[in-house]
């Protein structure tokens, strides 16, 4: 009896300790917004803050024994990776689809480049070099998320620190921090990536907002992506897991209405709140015009946003918006782009050995705009910078491109990094074009579906905003869609034939040359045997001329 009581007391105490653990906080958030074209974006954000934690100092990597890792809410498997490779800041996104900035505006989470994108800020000056740790972390994450992140190797790794400044802080260790960035546009996000992703959440998908993450619906959405962000702030280490999707209720609805609800979008409701979450909020961005009904009644309305706290109430939550009329696509009225600038990127040219890269940027504002343009090209496409031509509204303006920095590609080894600042006059269209050369690859370097072509990573545009202290701060990044480049392919079926043919020709010529070089020319008299030369090796032959 006493033993049982003691056990219960211990159990109670431990649960109290767990629940009152003030070191770690978990918040979850969902923002839902109806878009102009009838689609709905949902942005889930699951934030875990580990208070007073600091990233591992890479100088301690020399000693094997790291401090013990005790986490309650913070995902252990992720924490282990971060500590083993002493990563200060980490961003991983896996997206599919093309984010339409003009019609959808800026996304809640700005990293919407297609495919896989991984970047990390890593402090140097350790016994294990930055590149070794970068390789380690991408392999570890590949294992954790079941994604082909191992292919983000040195052939895709760049360091464009101007476009990707650290989002959190960098600890003051007197160590140089370096950025490693890699993207792989052909990587597709799938259920197998979402399952390990959900395992990192304290409530998994059993309760709270994560209940809505139904893979059948997420991967059916027009645009979907998952992301992992780890950053350090003075108050602690923050891990943010997010899921973003753009669903099309018009496609699902039978009547052509843009009504949506948790049930219609995700085929699920929030049955119960996540008990360890400090807050669990849903924010519905209200439409700017028209007649609509938001249900259930919002607990709070601030500006154009309706808020719900899922920790209140015990019944299942099925939040949604209804319109009395059918959706009419706004064809008649003009649709000004929702972003300050719009970008188009194309690869021109019909041949497989050369082409032209063309970027068209339109400034939709009345103010001059400065953009940081980043291109991380795999070495298979070589840029010819001497052919850069800049036109503003069809007038040549070489002066609008400045601050060019360029890291040359190395064949079979390193991509090129091209960064420059573009200045866009008010309400103007800037065209940047340059010639490119497409490489010829070894036959083992081609992917299995070689004729399909290669996906080139998206270009990234970052607005430079003039700030008070004279320097420029970066605004929200804009990713262009990826490009497909058509490379010349060798014949994959005949390596043996080529080796045999070439070797035969070389051997034949080599043999013939040396055959002639080692021969001795002699005269043979055919019809006068009495005048036979003294050289005993010379014999009469009947053939006219023999070369063998």
């Amino acid at each position: 009896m006493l033993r049982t009581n003691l056990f219960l007391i211990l159990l109670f105490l431990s649960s109290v300790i767990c629940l009152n653990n003030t070191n770690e906080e978990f918040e979850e958030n969902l923002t839902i917004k109806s878009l102009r074209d009838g689609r709905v974006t949902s942005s889930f954000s699951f934030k875990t803050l580990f208070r007073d934690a600091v990233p591992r100092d890479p100088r301690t990597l020399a000693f094997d024994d790291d401090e013990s890792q005790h986490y309650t809410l913070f995902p252990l498997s992720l924490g282990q990776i971060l500590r083993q490779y002493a990563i200060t800041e980490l961003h991983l996104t896996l997206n599919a689809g093309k984010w339409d900035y003009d019609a959808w505006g800026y996304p809640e989470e700005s990293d919407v480049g297609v495919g896989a994108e991984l970047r990390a800020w890593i402090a140097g000056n350790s016994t294990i070099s930055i590149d070794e740790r970068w390789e380690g972390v991408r392999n570890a994450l590949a294992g954790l998320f079941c994604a082909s992140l191992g292919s983000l190797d040195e052939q895709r790794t760049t360091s464009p620190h101007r476009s990707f400044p650290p989002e959190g802080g960098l600890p003051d260790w007197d160590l140089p921090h370096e950025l490693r960035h890699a993207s792989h546009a052909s990587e597709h996000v799938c259920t197998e990536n979402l399952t390990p992703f959900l395992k990192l959440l304290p409530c998994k998908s059993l309760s709270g907002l994560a209940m809505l993450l139904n893979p059948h619906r997420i991967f059916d959405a027009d645009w979907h992506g998952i992301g992992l962000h780890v950053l350090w702030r003075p108050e602690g280490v923050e891990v943010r897991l997010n899921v973003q999707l753009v669903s099309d209720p018009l496609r699902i609805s039978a009547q052509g209405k843009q009504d949506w609800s948790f049930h219609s979008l995700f085929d699920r409701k929030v049955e119960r709140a996540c008990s360890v979450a400090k807050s669990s909020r849903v924010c519905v961005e209200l439409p700017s015009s028209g007649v609509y009904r938001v249900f259930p009644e919002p607990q709070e309305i601030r500006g154009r946003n309706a808020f719900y706290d899922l920790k209140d109430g015990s019944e299942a939550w099925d939040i949604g918006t209804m319109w009395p009329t059918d959706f009419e696509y706004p064809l008649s009225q003009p649709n000004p782009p929702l972003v300050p600038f719009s970008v188009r990127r194309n690869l021109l040219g019909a041949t497989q050995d050369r082409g032209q890269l063309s970027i068209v940027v339109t400034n939709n504002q009345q103010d001059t705009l400065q953009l940081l343009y980043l291109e991380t090209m795999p070495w298979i496409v070589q840029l010819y910078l001497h052919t850069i031509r800049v036109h503003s509204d069809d007038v040549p303006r070489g002066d609008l491109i400045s601050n060019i920095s360029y890291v040359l590609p190395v064949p079979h080894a390193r991509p090129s990094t091209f960064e420059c600042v573009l200045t866009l006059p008010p309400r103007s269209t800037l065209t940047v074009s340059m010639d490119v050369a497409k490489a010829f690859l070894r036959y083992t370097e081609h992917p299995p579906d070689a004729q399909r072509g290669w996906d080139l990573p998206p270009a990234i545009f970052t607005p430079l905003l003039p700030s008070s202290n004279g320097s420029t701060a970066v605004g929200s990044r804009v990713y262009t869609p990826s490009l497909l480049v058509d490379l010349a392919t060798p014949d994959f079926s005949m390596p043996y034939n080529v080796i045999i043919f070439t070797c035969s020709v070389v051997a034949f010529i080599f043999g013939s040359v040396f055959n002639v070089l080692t021969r001795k020319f002699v005269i043979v008299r055919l019809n006068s045997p009495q005048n036979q030369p003294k050289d005993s090796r010379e014999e009469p032959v009947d053939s006219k001329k023999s070369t063998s």
Partner: protein
Amino acid sequence: MQQWPSYPKAIGFCIVLRLLLALSLDLYLSPPSLDAYSSHNGDKVVQFINDGPGLLSASSPLTLYANLKESLWLYHHGIDPYGSGIGQSPLYLALSFFPSIVDHTPINSQILSKAFEYLLWTIPDAFSAWFLVKIWTARAPSSFKSSSSIAFLLPTIYLLSPYGILPFLARSTGVWENAVLLGAIAWACDHAPNFKSKSLLLLALRTHLSLDAFILLPPLILLLLGSPESMLAEPRPFALRAQFTVFRAAGSLVLEFMAYWSALTLISTLIVGHWRWMSATWGASLSLPSMTPNPGLWWYFFTEMFDHFRPFFLVVFNIHLLMYVAPICIKFQHDPLYALFILLGILATFKSYPTLSDHGLFIAFWAIFPEVYPYLRHPFPTFLVLLHSALLQPLFAHLWLSHGTGNANFYYASTLVGACAGGMAVVDAVWAGLRIAIEKAGKDVKEVVEGEEMVVVTQQ
């Protein structure tokens, strides 16, 4: 005998003809317009050649004009042009002292830069033709001396054949390489004051522009010590003087060459500011980082090569080039110019990034040795095979890369046939060069025994 015009007239005529062709092509492709910025510089002609008749063959990555301009642009903007591990010699960066070649913005500098470009690619070709004539006059056997037809034909073959015109129109730096090499050979034949130093300096320069010229050093040294005159018919051992003096003279020439070569290396390093340019220029021609197709044999072989055998075969192909040097120099020690000619043919067929310029040089050199023509075994088949490959190469390259109806095998097959033509020409040249020696002896015999029937055979 028909009177041929003198060779300066021939060179001038050919140059004017080529310039007219280039200018009319230029005008046709980019009609003069006020929008000078969009019709930028003479690249239209270069593009036309590189996409059309000279696709893949007019220039290799190591002689491509666009790559040269890119290096100049990067150098001009303070970016290391050798960061990519493949590039042209740093000596070309001296061209960036003429900013007009890099920057085309104002209209007047555009016209200037165009004229400057034409000048830069016409002068070396004019010099090449002149050097060829000089080599011929230094060599011509007395029986041919009276005829000036070859002195007229040489510049015409070199300047007006497609092998000369296409690299010129494509602004391939192979044009420069040929001019420097021909200069080295011409001065080696010349026996003017300081001819040895001039010749060695130019060969060192040529080695800097493209590493393959190293294998021409032994025959050039033989040429400097011997004479360019045709001795094919009267072979005799090289050692005219005492062995020791010859070795000492050859040694001092090698040392002089190395001195020039080191000086140029130092200059290059000073221009670039680091030593890594060596792996980007010389290393590139040894390790084949770019698989861009060319009329040679390497590109498809190493495209299709299994990864673990690649280093081995790179070594084999490089050593293969070196293996010809000693036997050919020994066998043709009595006529080093002929040895040089055969090695030029070997280079054009077997080097890692051959272009039309290399083939053009080998073909033009044939005109210098008219004495061997009667002894060629199969000149006509060789010519037909060459013609076959030369006509099919641009066609198949176009079908593969632009039209999309052929594949790599088509172009590979045509380059293979081209290599066969090169090989046939080299083998025939070796045969004829050795066969001619027996003729003198044969004639002597003939005089003694009238009406006797004879054959010449070879024995192992």
